[in-house]
Each structure stands twice: as structure tokens, then as C-alpha cells.
């Protein structure tokens, strides 16, 4: 931690604690957290004249005499405002105005409730089903439908002190890992995205491989997604590479070129003469894929390699699982069936499976110094989860705020996780089979690891929640489009603001006070993938429920101690100076005593 004043630290503390209890999406507007109380969805953003607007945000429509049907505190009458970014409701019939805000990007679908013949109070209106684990119901008298304008990111014009688009430089990141080296080189064969349109422009591949080898391997891999480097161990040179499934098919096709190329990857690691191919899918799914032309590597074709199935289910299973979880968490929780209810959603079991898979990869790379090739079907969902999580466990750099941003940029964005389809930005087809919470699941896994290693991460929970909020909000360009190629085409870097600009301009909000770069911080993390430790991430999934909102007292208390330390440090310094002056004055007579040294094993 740098030389921030104690006052700063305290104010951060306050901000954070308030954010925890108010709508986290509004954490940036300072006024929004005033007067917020625990257990109330209370938020004073804006005033009677309307909501606070972001730069580039414009009011699109206002509906008066609307009733918000809060599942916790009952109906509230007020004004509903639509902007090109968000929906804003402000009550008029309560002493302390009651405010609900939601970015339009988080809307999954809108349903009309009731018809022309509906009788009774609050029986006619709309229900908004959100992607962020809540539903909002509004009742109103007359028809009032505002079309949403999905991609606010293109209108958003805030400027930040940091430019988040510069966070990730592919070549710089490869250089950080020591590439080029003897065995690995940087290849720009995909400069124009002609070899693989869902891959980044810059790859690291084995030095031994020629461009023809790469072309040939791409031809044998689903969607041309051939094995390229994700991470290399700084000492053993064991690597994690990623790709899509081989196009084996029912006939059991082979590609000598692909086999040879995989051999290069194995050979690039002198420590081991074996390669583990981690197929993220359950074996049955991998076999079933043969019918569609896919499949997995036959061990006799790929010499010295061993295929391991990690049993992670596909996007449809995950979508269904999260739907059940939302049902369980929103709006209210049935305490008597909470634990078994959790189990029946299967969500935690899926999370456990992914963490277990990542630990397996880490074990091979770290303990056995063996390289690992990871794939699933297309190599952009489960593969990204596994490689990114394994890298997070292996490399402390990714556990810093900037490092984590790099990790997301690299393993998720540049390698073509289909954010557009998985999230459905600006897309009305809420039942689209391509939607799936794959990235949410990854962030959940990261959260699980932070729970087991509370000192190992520079970022806090608020950082993770903020990323997920803006995954949906469409305020920033970061999660728009599905591949690097599309982002270049759409000129997102010029036209939109990066989420990392926003985050990196207010870093203290996202810093973990427990982060400790002490002696163990360089270590590889080996989380325990047991259901006994995998927990529901309540502060994310249940955060709209006022009874579930908890402050994080450990963080607060640690912050207090850190503040005290800063103050004492200053004081000690003053004393030392004083003493030094006195000693100097006396040094005429006696030999000057050394001023007391600051003893501090912790560099926080």
C-alpha cells in the first residue's frame, strides 16, 4: 500500500461499507450511498427531478404513478424513468425515498402482467426478469412500454484517469512469461484472423512448428481452434495449452500433422515425456460428440499422452442450474429447505467440478512438471474456465487487480468466449439456447478460492461483483462482442470505455485489506475441491434480499488496524525525527545513538 493518508483509508472504509448495503451498481455515485441503511433497498441517487445521469445518458421516458412491488417491503408508488442506460424508480409515498436502479443490459425479458380485464389493485403491469438474480415488478394504470436501447456503451462518454484498454498487451504478457525462448515463439500467422476467426491475432506456439503445421492442425480442430499457449511455468517450462476438440468423427479420423504438432508441445517441456490432455467434458459427452464429427484424442494416435475427462457439464446444464438457484434465492429463502434446496440446484456441484478440474491441472503442471493440453468441444467455455482458473492458482500475478484484468482479457476475451451470445447483449431472445452463465461460474470459482485463501488476492469481493454487474450493464465496451476480430471490427477501443478504466481509476475500492505479499504469497494455491468447503456465494446471489445483506466485518476491522498502523507510523516517524534532533544536539558530547529502526515484517 502506498503512502495514502489515514483519512483516505477511513473514507474508503465508509464508502465500501455503504456500498455493501446499497445497490452496488451505483457505487460510483458518492451521493448514492448517503443515508443508506442495512436491510433497505434505499438509495438516494438523483433527486425529485430525476435520476443522476452518466455522461452520455439521456432520459428516454418517464412514467408517473407507477407502483413498484417490492417483495420485501411491499408496494411503493413513485416515478419510473427510463434512460438509454438504466431504469430508475423513485418512490414518492415514503418518508425516505426508495430507489431502485437497474441497467437495461441486465434485463433478460419483460412480461406483461394482467390484461385489459384485470381487476384489483396492482394487477396490471410489467415484470422484468433480470440477469443479475432478481426480478422487478411494476404496476401501472395505462399501457406504458419503453423500448430499451441496448448498447449504451457506445453513447457513454465518461473519461477516466486510467485507460483500461491498455491493460492487456498480448506481446508484453507473453514477454512477462519469458517468450520468445528456445522452445516457444510468438506467431502472427493469425494477424488477419484468417486461420482462426475466434482466436486472437498473436499466439505463442512451439518454435518447432512451421506455419504449415499450424494450418494443418487448425484444419483438424473444431472451428480452427488449434492448441496454442496459455501459460508457461517459469522454472520447469511445463505449459498449459488450449484448443478445441479434434475432428475425429465416427470414423476415427486422424491427422498426422496435428499429432506431430501436439508432440512439439510435449517436447517443448524437457522435464517430462508425457502430456496430459484434459478434456473438460464428461466422457459420455466426448464420445457423443463423435457423431457430430468431433470427439477426443485417441491415446494410441497421440503417443505418450493421456486423456483425462474432467466431468464438467455443458452450457445448457449450467443455465438450468443457475435458473434453479435464482428460484431458490429470490425473492425469499425457505430456511427449512435451504441446504437441500441448494443441493438440488446442482450449482455447487458444478462449481466443485470446475475447481477440482483446475486443481488437477495445477497438480500436473506444478507437482509433476508435466504439460497439459485443455479442451472441451469448442474450447471457449469450459476450457476458458479451466485454463483461467488454473493460471490464477499457479501464478500470483493473476491474483493482483491488474493481473486479473489481464487474465480475463487474455483467456476469456481474446480467445473468443462468446460473451455476446452467452449474455445476450441487446438481444430479445431470452430463451436463446446460446445463453449460459459460464463466466459467472468462473467468477464464482474465483470467489470460492478467495474464501479458502483470504490473503492471496489483491482484490476483494466488491471487485468481482462489479465485474459481474458490468458484464450485463452494457455501460462499458469490455464484454461486448464475441471475439477479438469482432471487437477490432466494431472499433470498441475507440468507441467505448473499458471497464478497467473505471475500476483502475478508483483502485482503493477494490483492494483487499487482507492481501499480504508475505512469504507465502508466491505460492501455488491448492484449494480443496470438497463440497464441505464449496459455499453459496450469498453476497452475490442473494444480495437483493435485505435480510441476507452482511457487512464484511473482518475487512472493516482489518482496515481499522491498517489505519491505526498508518497513524502510528507517522507518529513514530515524528518521534524518530525528534530523537534524531536531540541526538544530534548531544552528539557533541557522546557518540550518536542510532535512532530506533522501524521494524515491520509486513508490507501492506
Amino acid at each position, binding site marked *: 500500500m502506498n503512502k495514502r493518508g489515514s483519512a483516505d483509508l477511513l473514507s474508503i472504509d465508509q464508502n465500501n461499507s455503504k456500498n455493501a448495503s446499497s445497490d452496488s451498481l451505483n457505487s460510483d455515485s458518492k451521493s448514492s450511498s448517503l443515508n443508506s441503511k442495512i436491510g433497505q433497498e434505499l438509495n438516494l441517487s438523483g433527486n425529485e427531478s430525476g435520476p443522476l445521469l452518466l455522461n452520455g445518458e439521456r432520459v428516454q421516458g418517464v412514467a408517473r404513478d407507477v407502483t413498484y412491488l417490492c417483495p420485501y417491503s411491499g408496494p411503493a408508488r413513485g416515478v419510473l424513468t427510463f434512460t438509454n442506460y438504466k431504469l430508475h424508480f423513485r418512490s414518492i409515498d415514503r418518508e425516505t425515498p426508495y430507489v431502485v436502479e437497474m441497467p437495461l443490459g441486465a434485463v433478460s425479458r419483460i412480461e406483461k402482467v394482467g390484461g385489459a380485464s384485470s381487476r384489483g389493485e396492482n394487477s396490471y403491469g410489467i415484470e422484468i426478469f433480470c440477469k443479475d438474480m432478481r426480478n422487478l415488478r411494476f404496476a401501472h394504470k395505462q399501457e406504458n412500454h419503453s423500448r430499451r436501447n441496448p448498447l449504451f456503451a457506445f453513447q457513454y462518454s465518461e473519461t477516466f484517469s486510467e485507460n483500461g484498454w491498455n491493460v492487456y498487451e498480448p506481446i508484453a504478457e507473453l514477454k512477462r512469461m519469458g517468450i520468445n525462448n528456445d522452445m516457444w515463439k510468438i506467431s502472427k500467422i493469425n494477424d488477419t484472423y484468417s486461420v482462426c476467426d475466434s482466436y486472437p491475432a498473436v499466439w505463442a506456439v512451439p518454435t518447432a512448428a512451421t506455419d504449415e503445421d499450424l494450418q494443418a492442425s487448425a484444419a483438424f480442430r473444431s472451428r480452427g481452434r488449434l492448441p496454442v499457449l496459455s501459460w508457461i511455468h517459469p522454472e520447469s517450462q511445463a505449459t498449459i495449452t488450449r484448443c478445441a476438440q479434434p475432428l475425429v468423427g465416427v470414423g476415427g479420423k486422424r491427422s498426422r500433422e496435428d499429432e506431430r504438432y501436439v508432440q512439439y508441445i510435449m517436447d517443448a517441456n524437457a522435464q517430462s515425456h508425457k502430456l496430459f490432455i484434459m478434456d473438460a467434458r464428461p466422457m459420455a459427452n466426448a464420445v457423443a460428440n463423435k457423431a457430430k464429427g468431433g470427439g477426443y484424442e485417441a491415446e494410441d494416435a497421440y503417443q505418450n499422452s493421456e486423456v483425462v475427462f474432467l466431468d464438467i457439464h455443458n452450457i445448457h446444464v449450467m443455465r438450468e442450474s443457475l435458473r434453479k438457484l435464482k428460484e431458490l434465492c429470490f425473492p425469499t429463502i425457505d430456511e427449512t429447505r435451504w441446504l437441500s434446496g441448494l443441493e438440488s440446484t446442482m450449482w455447487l456441484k458444478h462449481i466443485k467440478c470446475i475447481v477440482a478440474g483446475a486443481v488437477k491441472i495445477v497438480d500436473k503442471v506444478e507437482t509433476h512438471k508435466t504439460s497439459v493440453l485443455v479442451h472441451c468441444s469448442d474450447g471457449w467455455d469450459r476450457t476458458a474456465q479451466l485454463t483461467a482458473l488454473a493460471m490464477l492458482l499457479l501464478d500470483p500475478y493473476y491474483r493482483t487487480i491488474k493481473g486479473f484484468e489481464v487474465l480475463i482479457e487474455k483467456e476469456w476475451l481474446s480467445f473468443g468466449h462468446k460473451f455476446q451470445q452467452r449474455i445476450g447483449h441487446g438481444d430479445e431472445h431470452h430463451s436463446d439456447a446460446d445463453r449460459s452463465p459460464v463466466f459467472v461460474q468462473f467468477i464464482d470459482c474465483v470467489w470460492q478460492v478467495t474464501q479458502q485463501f483470504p490473503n492471496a488476492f489483491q482484490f476483494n469481493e466488491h471487485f468481482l461483483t462489479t465485474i459481474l454487474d458490468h458484464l450485463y450493464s452494457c455501460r462499458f465496451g469490455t464484454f461486448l462482442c464475441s471475439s477479438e476480430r469482432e471487437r477490432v471490427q466494431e472499433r470498441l477501443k475507440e468507441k467505448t470505455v473499458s471497464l478497467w478504466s473505471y475500476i483502475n481509476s478508483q483502485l482503493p475500492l477494490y483492494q483487499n485489506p487482507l492481501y499480504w505479499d508475505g512469504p507465502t504469497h508466491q505460492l501455488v494455491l491448492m484449494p480443496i475441491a470438497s*463440497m*464441505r468447503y464449496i459455499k453459496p456465494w450469498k453476497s452475490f446471489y442473494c444480495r437483493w434480499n435485505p435480510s441476507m445483506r452482511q457487512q464484511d466485518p473482518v475487512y472493516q476491522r482489518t482496515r481499522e488496524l491498517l489505519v491505526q498502523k498508518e497513524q*502510528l507510523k507517522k507518529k513514530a516517524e515524528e518521534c524518530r525525527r525528534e530523537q534524531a534532533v536531540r541526538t544530534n544536539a548531544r552528539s557533541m558530547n557522546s557518540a550518536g545513538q542510532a535512532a530506533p529502526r522501524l521494524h515491520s515484517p509486513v508490507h501492506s
Partner: protein
Amino acid sequence: MFEPVSESKQGISGLLAITNFKLTFVTAEENVDDIHQQNHLLGYTDICLSNVDNIYLIGDKKRKLTTGVSVPSKVKGIFIVCKNLRTWSFSFKFSDIGDGRNILNALLHHAFPTKHYLLFAYEYSLSEYIIVPASVTDDQLTKAAWHFQGSRPPIWSWSNDSGAALVKMAELSISIPDRTQENIMLENIRKNHPKKIQPVIIELNKDISIKSVSYSFTKLVELCSPDSIRQFIHQENNFYSLLENTKWLKHVSLCLRKSVEACEELNDGVPVILQGINHKCLLISVIGNFLIYISFKIAEGSGRDFCCIISSLVQLLLDPHFRTIVGFQSLIQKEWVAAGHPFCDRLGHLKNDGSEKAPLFLLYLDCVWQLCQQFPAYFEFTETYLTTLWDSTHVSIFETFIFNSERDRVKAASDPTNQLVLRSVWDWREQFSDHDIQLFYNPLYAPALADSKLHQIKPNHGISNLEIWSQCYFRWIPHLIINNGGKNQIEMYARLLQNDLAQLKIDANEATVTSSNIDQLSTCLLQMNINSFYPFSNKSSGNNVSTPIMNASFIMNESMIDSQSLLTTTD
């Protein structure tokens, strides 16, 4: 001897011996390292006999052994589950044929004694002075006293700022149908309230009883002491529903809820009576004008069980003094030991068919642990303290937790045939080094919170807000050790911070004396890699990766997984 929760393929060989105090395993092998928390009385491979909960015979089938059951002449192996959930597997494969049987017979005989055969200490006595409401005359008191069991009249024990008092009373003797005396006492308590408010009655939930807690704990033990890796993985598959089935958290939740309700009424100035369903109500404590009644279907010993939990929880929520180590100790002495909680019956120190075993004290400690989780800066003690306290209830050398009542203790103490040894659990130095005792102190504790208006705490008591106490329940399962991780890391970090603070204070001339204890401890902690179960983990379990758990998925019950993944097409 085998590693807990393993395949039982490789073990350590050694000598198994039994004394009238402990079962001890002596090995020549070097790998059996000591545990971090070094107990002066019991080594890492020692089991105090009163800690033994169940003994199973391992052979083709696991069979539970009880006293009186004849032991087969050939014993292949035994599996012991302790009351603190530690498990032991011993095999007699390489020993002489009769050995196993001999050990087992001795174990069965000594582990489940029927009398207090041990040497006891007597330390705390009934106070010679008691405090009662001012309006009560001595005559009334004496008259009333014999209506209460054990002739114990109401005794004042605690007051809050506004003068509201907590009064402890023994239960009304069941044989006396006349409620007059009780009513006189109630009237006096009512009169003592400045506003003369009549108490309000809250019915204590009927779904908690000694039996249900006992059953619940048995289930919890089952869940937390798997005898093999196979069982461990099997439990993984539906851990959450198994946990729900134990109903343990439900009981914790209930105790917390009742305590919170009592506190709320208290704050509102409404007197409270907690009452059971069958109107065999037993007056146990009065807080200000708030009477806590608890009754149970089982009359035996009631009023000294759940009342202990609720009244000591209420005081913990209301009075910051009890959240200090000294205060907590006095609270337990007052509300549990002096109040006559039948520790001997509930902890099953003696083999007695008439008594009901149920770890109510553990239930209470679990409630306290939940509070510590929700209010980490409000308690002077750590979870290590609570876990150690629980462990200490099974060390039969200490007299604190082995009697059913003060009366039994007095009786035992004055028994001329028995020699008396004065040993209290609270004298931690009997068991532990200064270093280990230092770990009882919570580095996040903020004493300042005690003075603030926030001195009352109000926990969330819903099951969804509770957690499983992993240090206490999981610490003997090696697969669950998180190396360099766990909540311990927070504690260690805070200790280092406090250490820095202390040092800086000296530098800033705010303090003159070095607090060397903290200093030593944190330097010591810094030097070793502490894991999630420190200080209860074995030192040797330093850096091994627990591989079995990673191969767990293939045994996963396929039918549990949605079949959807196979059916959907785009995969």
C-alpha cells in the same frame, strides 16, 4: 495405525497400550509428528478414555461394540470415533491373536465406566452470599426455597445498565402442584420492575429436546467422521442434504433465534417468559422483569439444559463483559457449572442407561462460534479457544465438566475414601504452553466496541446465515486441510498487524513495555506454513497434496447429474 480417511493400505506400526486414563499408541517411526497444539497431558497419539464415543469392530462388516458384548477372540481391527470427532483405525493384523481382544476388553471396561472412579477436584463452591429482590423477606425466601428443586432459591446473577437484573432460579419441584410459591416469587420480581410490567409468555419451540439434539449430534458425527475415503466421497455427493438431515444447524438456528427474541423483548421493555408446550414450566432465570421459562416433555434434569444455552447466550448478546475470556469463563461457571448442567449425563462420562447423552454444551459453543463469525471483532477469544474448551470437556482429569451438579461435586469432594486433586479446566497452563494459550486471544478483538452503544449484538439466525464449524468438525480429516489457507490466515495476518502496532507504539513512545508474547508468537507463526486447521493439524501434514480427493469425480453418482447434458445437442 492408519491415516484417518484413507484406503487403509499403509499404516504405521507401533504399540497400543491402555491405562485407566488413556489409550496410547507408541511408535518408533519418525513420521508421526506432534500436533502443533501440544497438550501436556495427552500426546498426539493418545486418546483420553472419556473422549471415546463409539468403538467399532472392523472385519467383513463394521460392527458397533458396547460393554457387555462379547468380543471375538480374533480381532482384525478397530475403528474408534471420539466425542471430539477424531477417528482412529487400528489393525491387529501383525499382532498376536489374543492381543486385539485383550485391548478391546480393557477399552470397553475402562472407556465406559459406571462410577466416578477418577480422582476429582473440587474448586468452586456455592456462594455463601446470595442476592435476592429487596422486597423478598427472609421468611418468604426460606419458605419458597424448598419448593424449588435442590432447595435453591432465586439468586441474582447479573444486572444491565438500566438496573434490570438476571436472576437464576432452580426449577420448581415437580411433585408440588401448588404454584403459590412460584407466584409469590414472580410477583416480587414484577414488583421490583420500575413499571410493574407483567411478563409476556413466549412458547419455546417444541421441536427441540435432549433427544433431538442427541440424535442430531449422532448424525453430525457420522457425517464428520468418515471411516474411509470411499465413505468420504460418498458423503461428498450429497453433503448439503446430509447436513440438513443432521438438523444440527437447525438447532443452532433455533437457540440463536430464541435468544435474539428474548433480547428484543428486553430492549422493548416487555417481560418475557419462554414456555414449553406441556406447561410443566420451569422457571429458570429472570432478566430484569423478564422471566425465562423453559420446559420439556422429559422432565428429568430439565431447566438445566436449554435454559443454560438460552440464558448464557442472552447475556453474551447483551453484555460485552462476557465476550472477554475472563467474562466468558465466569459465564460458563455461572450459567452452566453452578447452574447444575448435568455435564456427566450429557457428555456421557459414565455408562448409565438412565441418563441421556446429548452435547448441549457443544451446541452452545457452536452458537457462540456463529456469533464470532458474524462479529469477529466483538470477542476476545478465538475459535481455537472454543474448540479447545470442547476438547477439554473430555479430559477426565479436570473436575469442571464431569459432574451433574454442584451437589454431586460437593459430595465427591467430601468423600473421605477418595483423594482429591484440585484441577480446573480454566487453568490452561495445566494443559498448554504459553504459546498455545496465546492463540486463544483474538487479534481482531476491538475492546473499544465494548464501550460503544453497539455493545449489544444481534446475529442473523436463519440457517442460510449459519456455517458449519469446520475447525471443530473437520480438523481430523486430512483431505480437508487447506495448506497455507483457511480462516487462520486472517488471524495470523491480524496478529502480525497487531505486532506492528505494538512495535510502532513503542517507537512512538506511547508504550514502554514490550509485549514480547505477541512478538514471539507471530515470529513463530511466520516461520512455518500454517494450514487451515492450525493448531490442531499434524505438523507433518505440511505440504503433501491430498490426491485422493482429486480423483473423486469418477465415483460420482451419475444419476445425480442432470441427464440433460447428454441429451442436448450443441455440445
